């Protein structure tokens, strides 16, 4: 139990005020009904269950922070008290103060925004987490995350609009604000609130306006759109701000007052327009390259598999010839290897790669779990399909086709969620149908290239086959181009962080993006040319083959650049940072020049984490069969 002093000052005590029934979003403030059995389940914090008499009377009401933005002085006491209480390493904080400012000297105003987890009504972190590391407790409505379950994929950090979950690059797992539920249990406000020196931060049952305050606003400038998650935080901000509010961190985002919406919406801050550069090294060495490798390789294999299987099943010439050729079985193994490579890269980028098996745990809610499940079924079935394709008998053929069917099912399910998982409202650049166009286009273009190159190597290629494959690639490339161009047009001037993504696309990665566009254009044209001309060249491959190889190279290159850019330019709807702390520009700079070597700088390097076989074996050994079975059941029950 948290050690409560006899003389705790009044400002640290929960007021116990609970007068409202529903939140402004319409949800009941009681987290569970009066008679819910959940109220009787023990709530065990740090091993000891507080006695019944100590139980906080408002335990089963949704609690939340209250932030008076006019009062925040940016003194960092909340952040530091949080770090002290939670023993967090210096390179991350559960709570951070960001800064936005507006006006010109002396008509200038700075708004400090202290933000931790908002313990949302709709916790997208919980729904996104594939390992079920998150729980929204009936107690206080607290959304708690267990680092011991987490496998460090960081997906919750993608979906959370507020930067609340902290992916620790050193420890390789996520952790976050826990509402100081141990303090709540003994009637104390969270450590950050008790530490506040500006009387800005408060805490209590949600919708309760503290004494001396009048507003319970849902948002303030710089705070991401609350309709995404219905965060349990309320604001007061009475002092007049200018129409344009700027961030002080490196991100070229500013917030503009939209009279119609009555709120500040994000847009590009032209004063921070970056220079037009290549930044190829930065692009191709990023931590997200694992995702590039995974999506491209798996989508290529998926595309090739669909073409192979459907053409075989429905006898679509000349594609069906590939299945009939002697290179069919080897090709399948190449596909297995390529998909395995993608899966390996994906798994090894996890903070805890040896906990890979937890990826399915949240099948009920998480698109990531569904993607992993679907792709795993696809991969397993593909391998089985390839295995049975090695034998030439009716049983093996039957089994092979059966596994082809399950592979298709897995592919459809996993492929869909591979796309769905990027439709994240907190990442507006991705949250667009172009993501589907890009993934489908990749499947078509790289899938057909894979088949074409394989048939060229295996000697099964014909001008007709190459032309057919080129036409499919043409479709894929066209789809990708169309998605890209529509997205560009729609997002470039959008009132969202997506516009900033396009700023990065055309400046920081401007030359690279132009190269990619060029490659895409040339590849599309070439695919068209091959489609039309190759069948006309009587019989021989001497014309079509070199062009096809060139097309394949172009397609791979543009896909690689395109996908790398897809991950590099995305700008989340994050909370603003400060000058140094949580300033993405400074973090990058510190890593680049070596300032991050100083432990007191608070910047850690990204690093790869080893596959800890020992931990895996230990878990297997120490988990009873009953627990394993229960765990398995909970994949479906939650």
């Amino acid at each position, binding site marked *: 139990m948290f050690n409560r002093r006899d003389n705790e000052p009044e400002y640290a005590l929960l007021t116990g005020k609970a007068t409202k029934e529903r939140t402004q979003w319409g949800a009941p403030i009681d987290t569970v009904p009066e008679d819910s059995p959940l109220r009787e389940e023990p709530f065990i914090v740090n091993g000891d269950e507080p006695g019944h008499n100590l139980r906080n009377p408002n335990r089963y009401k949704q609690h939340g922070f209250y932030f008076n933005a006019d009062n925040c002085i940016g003194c960092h006491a909340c952040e530091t008290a949080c770090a002290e209480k939670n023993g967090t390493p210096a390179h991350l904080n559960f709570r951070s103060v960001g800064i936005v400012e507006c006006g010109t000297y002396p008509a200038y105003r700075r708004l400090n925004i202290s933000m931790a987890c908002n313990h949302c009504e709709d916790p997208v972190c919980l729904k996104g987490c594939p390992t*079920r590391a998150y729980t929204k407790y009936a107690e206080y409505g607290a959304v708690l995350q267990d680092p011991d379950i987490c496998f460090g994929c960081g997906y919750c950090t993608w979906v959370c609009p507020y930067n609340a979950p902290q992916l620790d690059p050193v420890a390789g797992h996520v952790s976050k604000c826990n509402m100081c539920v141990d303090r709540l249990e003994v009637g104390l406000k969270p450590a950050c609130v008790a530490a506040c020196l500006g009387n800005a931060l408060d805490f209590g049952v949600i919708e309760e306006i503290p004494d*001396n305050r009048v507003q319970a606003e849902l948002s303030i400038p710089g705070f991401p759109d609350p309709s995404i998650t219905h965060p349990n935080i309320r604001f007061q901000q009475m002092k007049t701000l200018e129409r344009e509010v700027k961030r002080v961190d490196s991100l070229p985002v500013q917030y503009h007052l939209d009279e119609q919406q009555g709120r500040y919406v994000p847009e590009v801050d032209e004063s921070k327009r970056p220079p037009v550069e290549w930044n190829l090294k930065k692009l191709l060495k990023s931590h997200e390259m694992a995702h590039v490798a995974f999506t491209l390789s798996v989508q290529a294999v998926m595309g090739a598999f669909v073409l192979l299987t459907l053409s075989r099943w429905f006898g679509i010439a000349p594609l069906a010839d590939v299945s009939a050729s002697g290179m069919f079985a080897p090709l399948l193994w190449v596909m297995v290897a390529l998909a395995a490579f993608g899966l390996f890269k994906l798994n090894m980028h996890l903070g805890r790669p040896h906990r890979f098996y937890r990826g399915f745990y949240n099948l009920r809610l998480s698109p990531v779990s569904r993607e992993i499940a679907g792709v795993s079924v696809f991969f397993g079935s593909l391998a089985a399909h390839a295995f049975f394709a090695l034998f030439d008998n009716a049983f093996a053929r039957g089994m092979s086709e059966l596994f082809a069917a399950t592979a298709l099912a897995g592919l459809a399910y996993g492929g869909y969620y591979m796309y769905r998982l990027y439709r994240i409202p907190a990442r507006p650049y991705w949250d667009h149908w172009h993501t589907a166009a890009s993934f489908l286009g990749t499947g078509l273009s790289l899938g057909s290239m894979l088949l074409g190159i394989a048939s060229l190597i295996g000697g099964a290629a014909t001008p007709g086959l190459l032309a057919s494959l080129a036409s499919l690639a043409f479709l894929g490339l066209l789809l990708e181009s169309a998605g890209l161009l529509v997205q560009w047009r729609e997002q470039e001037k959008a009132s969202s962080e997506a516009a900033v993504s396009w700023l990065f696309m055309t400046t920081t990665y401007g030359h690279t993006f132009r190269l990619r566009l060029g490659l895409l254009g040339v590849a599309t044209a070439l695919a068209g040319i091959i489609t039309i001309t190759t069948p006309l060249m009587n019989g021989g491959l001497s014309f079509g083959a070199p062009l096809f190889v060139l097309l394949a190279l172009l397609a791979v290159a543009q896909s690689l650049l395109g996908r790398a850019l897809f991950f590099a330019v995305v700008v989340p709807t994050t909370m603003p940072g400060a000058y140094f702390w949580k300033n993405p520009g400074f973090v990058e700079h510190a890593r680049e020049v070596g300032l991050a070597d100083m432990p007191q700088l608070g910047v850690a390097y990204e690093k790869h984490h080893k596959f800890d076989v020992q931990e895996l074996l230990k878990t297997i050994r120490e988990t009873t069969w009953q627990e394993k079975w229960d765990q398995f059941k909970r994949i479906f029950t939650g």
Partner: protein
Amino acid sequence: MLFGRTKKNPVNLYEKPVVEWRTATCGYCSTGCSIDIGLDENGMPVSCRGNAEADVNRGKLCLKGIFEYEVFRSPGRGERVMEREHIRAPWQQSNWDSALDRLYSEIRRIQKKYGPDSFAIISTGQMLNEEFYTLGKLTRGLIGTNNYDGNTTLCMASAVSGYKRSFGSDGPPGCYEDFEHTDYLIAWGSNMPEQHPVMYWRLKEAHEKRGFPIVAVDPRVTILAQGASLHLPVNPGTDVPLMNAMMHVIFAEGLEDREYIEKNCTGLEELKAEVAKWTPDRASQITGIHPDTIVTVARAFARAKAAMQVWTMGINQSTHGSDGVVGINNLALITGNVGKPGGTPLSITGQCNAMGTREWGSTSGLPNFRALENAEHRKEVAEFWGIDEEFLPRKRGLTQTDIYKAMEAGEIKGLWLVATNPLTSLPDTSRVRRAMEQLEFCCVQDCYFDAESVQYAHLYLPGATWAEKHGVMTNTERRVNLVKPVIDPPGEAKPDLWVFNRLAERFNAEREKQGKKPLTFPESASEVFDEMKQLSRGRLSDSTGMDHELIDKHHGIQWPYVEEKRKRGEPPRQGGVRLYTRPASFMHPDGKAKLIPLPWEDNNEHPDEEYPFWLNTGRLVEHWHGRTKTGKIANNNKFSPIPFIEINPDAARDLGIRHGEYVRLVSRRGDAIAMAMPTGRVPYNMVFMPFHFHNATNRLTLGLLDPHSRQPAYKQQACRIEKIDNQEEAARLCMEMRTF
């Protein structure tokens, strides 16, 4: 749970392994917060929390206090006594005996060869009162150099000087409780939310209850300025004309408190004659403040039932620092706002114990605000210590700033630095380096071996820090707070009191050889306290009613608290103790305060074509002074780990400087590299640079001295900003220039 899982897992939160809490007073700023330090089962400090019973902070701490437990074993602590032949020779490990012998013999050698004042001692605002008193006794009573000062010359000298000129003695008259009674508050060059965050919280609490107007006078839109009822963005260094114009309005409109002035002040006519010249229009031309605004503020200030003025370095660190303090006092006196609840001037001190060195350090005089210039004071102290009265100089010696000039002039050959780091803190670093290179002998006594000044030392004595020691500190509101040791110093490091006592033994031995009686140097801090408080009897800061135990019990006691009260069974008050509450109780011989006219002449280095920017300097909430402490505590340091400037976005745009780029700053003194952070906080022609980073800001500063206090003007000088094309090289250079 609502959803997420059907299996409810137990919740495991991090817990500090604290087995015992011990209380100390914070060693950072002068607010004087009481801190509970949590120790683990091995006795290692692992946690800090605000003490809930202490009246000062009522359970609160700022971010520095919250992580203060990390200072004990932070990198760079000096653990060994070190010696070397010359400043380029490698360090050799030494021991206390031979090191103190060397310090003793070097002091005497230099004094013999070049005269008694050729050896200078510069102390600090970081030690404990008992240590200040002991060092003062050692210096004034045994060593006998008059060139002895504290680094308080860099922060509070102007306040000291201004108080002395107006009231006849140093000593801030107000207290924190005044926030709860005031009806109007002017903050002159004081950004409390950043400089004194917990004191600001006390102000905020009071303000939320009663909502009185707050006026911020500051050239920069600080957090206090933007939150204030009114911000006066005054031109740098022009506070005195603003004060004069306010007094002009007050007298012109008959808003002064005639009865109060009659009973308590002298010099009214001279003051009136001077301020008559300062019409709001004239002052407006100089200060940049709208004349009507001056009138508004003057009227509201004068009409308020109780009006308070606080100030910090914006006033003290300027060429008219002492005059600025006198101006504040003038304003307070003519409106009767001294010594009454909510009506007071209150200088907000910088260092945790700057007040202690003012009271007990004997730097600018003798213990407890006694003056060397006063024969009676010399006699009292000489008799109390048992020394020859003639041994005490009849006039104060050089200030820290002038000691460095005397080093340049070859008049000072030896230096003992105690818990201060002039290489980082004095203006114009290159001159400081040059001065220190010329020393024949320099001893640095500090808790950090990596303090920059150690570069020029021949002898390094590792000091204990903060709650490794025992004694008291006095805070801004004259509250004497106790610090008790919670952990032993690392390695061979020793409390400063121990070091002074051991050195005193050597000088006492010399005395005994001459057949004189040795001076007493009690070993324990509480004994020292009992000795020194005798010297406070009957004086302004009478603390004869206190002892360590009682101070501990009450979480600090404000002076005065006299023995008679204690004997009567009157416990010390929780707060709200003020000075000059009775009529004509000021410390000038006639009991009256002086109204002093302040003619003003602008002598600052202004921006010009070659150096078009004002260079303003100041503090950040996350750092403490030269960062020897906070620069190593990640949870403080990470909020501003490298030198930077605030520059107006329009100026940055016109210079082609991008957000987050390194720039070169050039002044007539030198250059520095810093990262540019554009913000509308500063005007087009000003950059603000935090002073905390060594080898940066003070390479540029000019440091003109106030004629009364000899305090440097750190905040008003000119510089230019140059764009750096090779950012990689700039980053490397900036990184190489400091390891923390």
